């Protein structure tokens, strides 16, 4: 076991995958000699050569389109989109192509591939270096959407994603890249997709969260505990396909639920959690699901700390559902 940052764990995951499987290829803008703008791919070109880790022209459509082609023809592409905000030129390739190839070809052609990209706020990136677009992709059958929140999961989920037979969008919470550290097993292991992680036990309120919101939820839960409200914190970590049974179980245990994300509220991921709980286990619920989310505005810059959910807003919601 080594103690790594989340960023180092991603890097370690990529290296582990490339060592175990010669068909894994890594590419994207600036991922080669520079090692990526966040250095997630540092050292890969050196260790694996410039055929297996290389820079591409500035075209997300080309990156994802080519990745699909590689996947159709036996490689395991792991491409990087420099910021999730810049994934939209590739939206057509992801939504119309990667997500639908297996279905439309009756299983003749498939796209086992991973698109890695940093997402989320907290680095004063303004409108275009801060967005959280998970809901777009979770509304797209055929895709899988994964978001780790710890170094251990970052590596383990990445390895599982690379081994997966279907296209996976792997969203990395850039706010946590260097701010969290943790034990990470050496070599190969994996954290299965579509499983939840219990971050903290508690019987009063269930908090569903993911990515950079997990540490905020933990902070809020500590403050809540000080007030006698013990929270069950669940890190969803695979958003789609979701372990719905697990979510319903965790919700039932307390009957009071808060769901947290950075993305705008309207038609955001939290709405699905809320709707799903209402439909399936309303009889267990003591309070309506409360959402703590970004606002329904573009992402601001100077005032981003107001925009992003923090422990205070989460605590308010915990108290709200607790007192309902």
């Amino acid at each position, binding site marked *: 076991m080594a103690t790594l940052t989340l960023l180092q764990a991603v890097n370690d995951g990529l290296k582990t995958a490339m060592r175990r499987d010669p068909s894994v290829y890594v590419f994207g803008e600036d991922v080669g000699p520079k090692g990526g703008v966040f250095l997630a791919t540092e050292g890969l070109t050196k260790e694996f050569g410039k055929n297996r880790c290389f820079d591409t022209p500035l075209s997300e*459509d080309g990156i994802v389109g*080519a990745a699909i082609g590689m996947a159709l023809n036996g490689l395991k592409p792991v491409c990087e989109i420099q910021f999730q905000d810049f994934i939209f030129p590739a939206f*057509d390739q992801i939504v119309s192509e990667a997500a639908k190839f297996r279905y*439309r070809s009756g299983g003749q052609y498939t796209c086992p591939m991973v698109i890695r990209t940093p997402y989320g706020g907290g680095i004063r990136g303004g409108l275009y270096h801060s967005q959280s677009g998970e809901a777009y992709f979770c509304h797209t059958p055929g895709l899988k959407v994964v978001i780790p929140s710890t170094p251990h999961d970052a590596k383990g989920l990445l390895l599982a994603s690379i081994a997966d037979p279907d296209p996976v969008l792997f969203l990395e919470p850039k706010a946590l890249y260097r701010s969290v550290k943790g034990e990470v097993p050496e070599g190969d292991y994996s954290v299965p997709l579509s499983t939840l992680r219990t971050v903290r036990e508690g019987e009063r309120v269930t908090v569903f969260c993911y990515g950079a919101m997990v540490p905020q939820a933990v902070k809020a839960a500590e403050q809540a505990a000080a007030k006698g409200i013990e929270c069950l914190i669940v890190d969803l970590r695979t958003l789609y396909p979701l372990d719905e049974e697990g979510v319903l179980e965790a919700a039932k245990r307390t009957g009071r639920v808060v769901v947290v994300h950075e993305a705008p509220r309207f038609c955001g991921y939290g709405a699905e959690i809320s709707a799903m709980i209402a439909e399936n286990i309303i009889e267990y619920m003591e309070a309506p699901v409360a959402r703590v989310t970004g606002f329904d505005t573009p992402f601001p810059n100077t005032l981003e700390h107001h925009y992003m959910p923090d422990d205070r807003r989460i605590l308010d919601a915990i108290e709200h559902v607790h007192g309902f």
Partner: protein
Amino acid sequence: MTATQPISVIEESGAINGHAHGLSKQELSHCYRTMLLVRAFDDTCLKLQRSGRIGFSIPNKGVEACQVGAASALRKSDWIFPSYRDFGMALYHGVKPLDMMHNMYGNAQDSAKGRQMPVHFSFDAPIHFVSISSPIGTHIPQAVGAAYAAMMRKEDTVFLTSFGDGGTSSLGFHSGMNFAGVWKAPVVFLCQNNGYAISCPTEEQTASDGYAIKAKAYGMPGVVVDGNDLLAVRKVVGEAVERARKGGGPTLVEARTFRMGGHSTSDDPTRYVPKELVEYWAKRDPIERFERFLAQAGYWKKGDRDRLYDECMQEVGAAARAAEETARPALETVFTDVYADMPAHLRRQGQAAFDLAARKGDASAGDGKFPL
């Protein structure tokens, strides 16, 4: 159309002036028969659509030489990333009309399991004829990625991707051409310039002098060929294929041709195509042109066309009847193949659909139990 003269081989008279096509009589006959098969398939689908038996089809009349000539330059181990008008390429390489008809009917035997619109074929044998999707141009960078995979494995596979004049405006064209140039990928880009993108004529599609010149923007050769001349297409695409196979990188081939029918069976081309243009091209039918060449070579005589076309019509007609009699896809096919393994939520949705279908007495639900 533009200043550049397209390369052609077969003259009006059928003469080829010593051009060494290098094709055996058998190969030439196969090309010829495939063109007739394309036309028979086309004619049949048009009738099936008009009589309401299938929902949609994509006319192919006039562009048979492009497709068959290009396909003939490939090996079975090569890959085709086709557009929706390219089924002649599949027929050339041995895909059966019956397999195609299953798709036109979207039935249980359709390789796409009835999920796609007609003409959105997918075959993985006898050649890779990669699943067609509707969005224009998306397949172009995919062909380049697939080519990269082959390069990495040091295979000498070539990847042909085909698209229309309109397709050159798509983002996939730009990214695919650019990536192929940088990677020197073994890809042949075939632009079938049939004069229109639905109703949009070339002068409203681009201000460039034709389409082949766009190759310059990506550092690769661009060649214009007479698309109604099977031997010329075969020659030009063949050279591009061989260059690619030997590591010489990609080529853009522009084949000038004309779509004699509507864009699709939903389209009425008289709203936008000048009559004179249709007349001009009617005189340049690719099948007749090839027949004149075959006749000069001593491989064709009057009567061959009717006999062969009839044969093809028989085969296609039988395929249509068989496809029509084949059952619809089972209800479960709505839910399978979304992922390799079906997630729980789809299992639940599937079960609900089965329950409802069973209550309604819908046959596609089988015995009403979700079988997976």
